[in-house]
């Protein structure tokens, strides 16, 4: 129920416009504590746990990026595995030339962001469904091109060099911290982007594209920006993947399964909410760990759940939670709040009918 223009922020009689329905300071402090505790994990838990956590960070990063694309910019990309693969290969190539894989990580992210520009130029010619398959073809094409170079392993891939000097325990801890940093940055970037002008443009486009365009919103530019950020984020996740697997294999890093996982986690958690990917990743990890012995069953179940959620609970699990307890951890919209007393915003909106004051 975010308002499309900022001009409504002027004070009006009886109520004020706020970012959050509960005090955001507490959730901010809570988030900080969670990150600090997570950062201490390598000292507390077994390396088996941190390895699983790294997997969760990869999925969380991917899901947050896919959420930006599909949940906010309306771009259903089925080719995000292109960036996962490119990120992994950026790390591999730099490591072959003597760089530390961890130093290569930011380079991989930036490289993938840059690579997103020509890719956007190609695929943005097509809309909605055809855009989806075009990104898929592009990912397949990039994989086929990379497979031609035998110096980086050709079709079979190769092990990642440059980590032999590190002891296994240190390597696991570094990988964990790198994964945590990437996931936190991905969430922070989503939050800050959506809180700013871009979020306003994207919300306006989502509500009514024609109206947004005619009031001067630069829709194409906003979508390009999201595509580039998502490319960089998925590239960083691909780099973490390469470091955690210590092996880069084209058919594995360019697998459409990455897009399936990020999409399902996002849809189940809640498309178009920043909290959704976090919940979705948790659901994903639980299912994947419980059903690990049954091959692809976790993916089948996730897919079925995602279909049901997409049809019957469009805002996902987080939407259900939000409806009950009226909570936003990452408020990016605007809310009305009564100055006098504690009347719930929803009741206020109900009393106003649809009469959210328009500028």
């Amino acid at each position: 129920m975010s308002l499309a223009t900022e001009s409504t922020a002027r004070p009006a009689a009886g109520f004020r416009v706020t970012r959050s329905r509960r005090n955001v300071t507490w959730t901010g402090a809570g988030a900080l504590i969670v990150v600090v505790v997570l950062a201490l994990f390598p000292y507390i838990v077994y390396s088996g746990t941190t390895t699983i956590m790294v997997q969760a960070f990869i999925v969380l990063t991917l899901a947050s990026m896919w959420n930006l694309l599909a949940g906010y910019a309306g771009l259903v990309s089925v080719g995000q595995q292109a960036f996962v693969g490119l990120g992994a290969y950026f790390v591999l190539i730099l490591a072959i030339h003597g760089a530390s894989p961890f130093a290569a990580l930011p380079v991989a992210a930036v490289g993938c962001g840059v690579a997103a520009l020509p890719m956007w130029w190609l695929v943005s010619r097509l809309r909605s469904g055809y855009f989806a398959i075009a990104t898929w073809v592009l990912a397949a094409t990039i994989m086929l091109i990379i497979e031609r170079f035998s110096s980086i392993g050709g079709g079979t891939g190769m092990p990642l060099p440059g980590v032999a000097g590190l002891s296994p325990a240190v390597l696991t801890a570094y990988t964990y911290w790198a994964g945590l940093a990437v996931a936190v940055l991905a969430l922070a970037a989503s939050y800050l982007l959506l809180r700013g002008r871009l979020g306003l443009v994207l919300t306006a486009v989502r509500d009514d594209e024609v109206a947004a365009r005619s009031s001067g919103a630069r829709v194409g530019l906003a979508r390009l920006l999201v595509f580039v950020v998502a490319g960089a984020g998925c590239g960083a996740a691909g780099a973490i993947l390469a470091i955690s697997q210590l092996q880069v294999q084209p058919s594995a890093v360019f697998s459409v399964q990455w897009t399936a996982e990020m999409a399902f986690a996002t849809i189940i958690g809640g498309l178009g909410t920043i909290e959704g990917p976090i919940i979705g990743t948790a659901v994903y990890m639980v299912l994947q760990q419980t059903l690990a012995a049954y091959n692809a069953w976790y993916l089948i179940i996730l897919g079925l759940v995602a279909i049901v959620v997409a049809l019957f609970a469009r805002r996902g699990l987080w939407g259900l939670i939000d409806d009950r307890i009226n909570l936003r951890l990452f408020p990016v919209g605007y809310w009305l709040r009564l100055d006098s007393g504690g009347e719930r915003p929803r009741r206020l909106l109900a009393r106003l009918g649809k009469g959210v004051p328009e500028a």
Partner: protein
Amino acid sequence: MAWVNAIIQGVLTGGLYALFACGLSLMFGVMKVVNLAHGDLAVVAGYIAIGVITVTHVPVLWSVLIVVPVMAVLGYVLQRTVIQGALDRSVLTTLLVTFGLSVVIENGLLQFFTANTRGIGAGLPLVTGSFSIGSQIQIAYLLVVIFAVAVVVLLGLQYFLSASKYGRLIRAVADDREAAQLAGADYRHVFGIAAALAFGTVALAGIGYGMYSQLDPTAGTDTILLFAFAAVVIGGLGSLWGTLLGGVVLGVAQQIGAQINISDEVLAGYIVFLAVLVLRPQGLTSRRTQS
């Protein structure tokens, strides 16, 4: 002579690709649905055909008579339930739902039928036989038959949509759903019929591919969906004959690529696809037909 051979083979495989693309094009033309599970459904049709042949021992081609109606019914049911349900919500939802279906079908096939490849009708004279022109050009009967089937299907669809009463209804609903509804047409039922038609061609595509090559669970996306899509874009969105031309261009590009370097077959096709996307995003035939 090798180049002439490559072009002839390319044109003929183009028929198969046009058959892949037919259902995708039809569903988009009528319902504005891009069915991301398109290729996986073709593989399902192929597996059903294998099952029917193994269980009932009917001749291979007879299985077509069973699988096409089965898939048509499945198409109608899927359209009336899941796809229509998604369509009522938003275009985005149709993409999410069909992508979910695609992944579920592919991994389901992988679980139940393993990653092993399976052919249809291996050893039949139709599948293995060929005739030669000169000493270097060998043409498989099967490819000629598939090409002919593709042309007949496209002609049939064209005739059905432009001349028959039901075809007019489909076009009316595709043009303006509300107006057609006001005139008494139940657009949901019409969408179901269009989906049934599309799924019928999907069945032919799956069986054709199973005979021409080998089916495995990943063939649905890696080959059928992506090639179908490339053919549609190269030919021009919304044109049935453009789809045939797109299929042929894709086939020729792949065969020429294979002639240069055997491992570049698929890549060459995609590069032509990307070139068309850059130079002529409306496709080679920009004329639009009613579908």
